[in-house]
């Protein structure tokens, strides 16, 4: 299936991306932004068909926040394995990219893409809701070429 000309079923499937959040040792700033992006009426991502799901087994797009601390690394990798293919990974905030303000800490195992293939980076500390929505829209475009 090529990216330029996805089949009808791929296009219909990509209208239903379910989001799953993993907090990899984040300070909660990005998590608050994710929560407000989805929940408050102004930035309703349900119009893209998105829906937050409680279980990693239901997820299509995984949003990872935080610098990946040493203590949480194995759990994050296990959760990532639990998500059925095809999936897209989105790193939210500057922490998963470089460690952000925590970059020199002894407690950090990151950056994230040493362990998990990251498709989209959304930089910011924390990123603006508009940036998160743009990132999710780009992730949906990548996901359409995989499903």
């Amino acid at each position: 299936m090529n990216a330029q000309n996805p089949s009808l079923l791929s296009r219909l499937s990509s209208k239903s991306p379910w989001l799953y959040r993993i907090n990899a040792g984040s300070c909660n700033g990005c998590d608050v932004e994710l929560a407000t992006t989805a929940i408050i009426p102004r930035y309703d991502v349900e119009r893209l068909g998105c829906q937050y799901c409680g279980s990693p087994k239901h997820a299509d797009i995984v949003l990872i926040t935080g610098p990946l601390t040493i203590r949480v690394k194995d759990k994050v990798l296990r959760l990532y394995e639990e998500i059925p293919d095809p999936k897209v990974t989105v790193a939210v905030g500057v922490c998963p990219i470089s460690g952000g303000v925590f970059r020199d800490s002894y407690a950090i195992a990151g950056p994230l893409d040493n362990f998990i293939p990251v498709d989209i980076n959304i930089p910011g500390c924390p990123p603006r809701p508009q940036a998160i929505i743009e990132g999710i829209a780009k992730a949906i475009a990548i996901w359409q070429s995989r499903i």
Partner: protein
Amino acid sequence: MSDSLSLLFAVLVFPGGLFALVLGLAIKGVDRRVAARLQRRVGPPLLQPFFDLIKLSRKETMVPAQASAFIFRWVPLVGLSAMALAAAMIPINGVYQPSTELGDLLALFYLLAVPAVVLMLAGSASGSPFGAIGFSREMAIMLAYEGPVLLALLSVAIRVGVGEGHLISLSLSDIVAYQIAHGPFLLDPWMWPALLTFLCFFPANLGVLPFDIPEAETEVLEGPLLEYSGPSLGLFKMMSAVKCVVVLGLGITLFLPGGPDGIAGLLVFAVKCTVLAVLGVTVVRTAMGRMRIDQAFYFFLKWPAALGIASLVIVLARS
């Protein structure tokens, strides 16, 4: 031969199976859109539940290592087929009259318990602690709502039965015929306690707020459905869509069955289902938060039970 073929058609295509599935998914789409508008959001497209199903059919199915694989894989199919059978038992006035071989009101009532049992089996077979919590909650809430709603069903059945000159009438076709002749029970204030009991049963049976306690995604991560992925999760979504039509159709049969013949009757049925879903499910779920399992348990043993007993007493006293 042709009789069994028409039964098979009723269960698989119309009004069970395919028709109920499409109608149920459309109602769920309207429900999500209206819920979003009530919260001043834009909301998903009306066809969103169809997109979800197509998506799920293309995902990978994972069976957890500690699960009992046979039950885990096959139990959603049991629930879906039970609901397709139940949907074939719902009469649509002027369009479809269920065959008496399919069963009566009590058989339908017991078929309605199958999805809850399926969820319990799924939760316990998945080997996950969250599934086990969902299992126990599902069982508690089912024990609480089954009694009161049975009282409401019995009061309708006795009312119709006495009106026809015998003790009780459990045939859905008779209930429809009686109301066509004597006016719908919705307009009869003496039947309103039974109606209220039935309205309380709605969100509990459909597993939506404020009674989505077994599948609470923020507490027990969707409970019994936690370990399901891909097509088998899709089977659960299909089961709940068909169940939605069965429960709404049962409410319409019991309280407002009238309708014109032919295609118009079908449209009237769909519109009645949608209006009932919006008023009985969407508005309730956007207006309320989730109850705790003990609160829900006491709620059902208090108010719907009292209303059910009152309705039975009223029907018996007036007969």
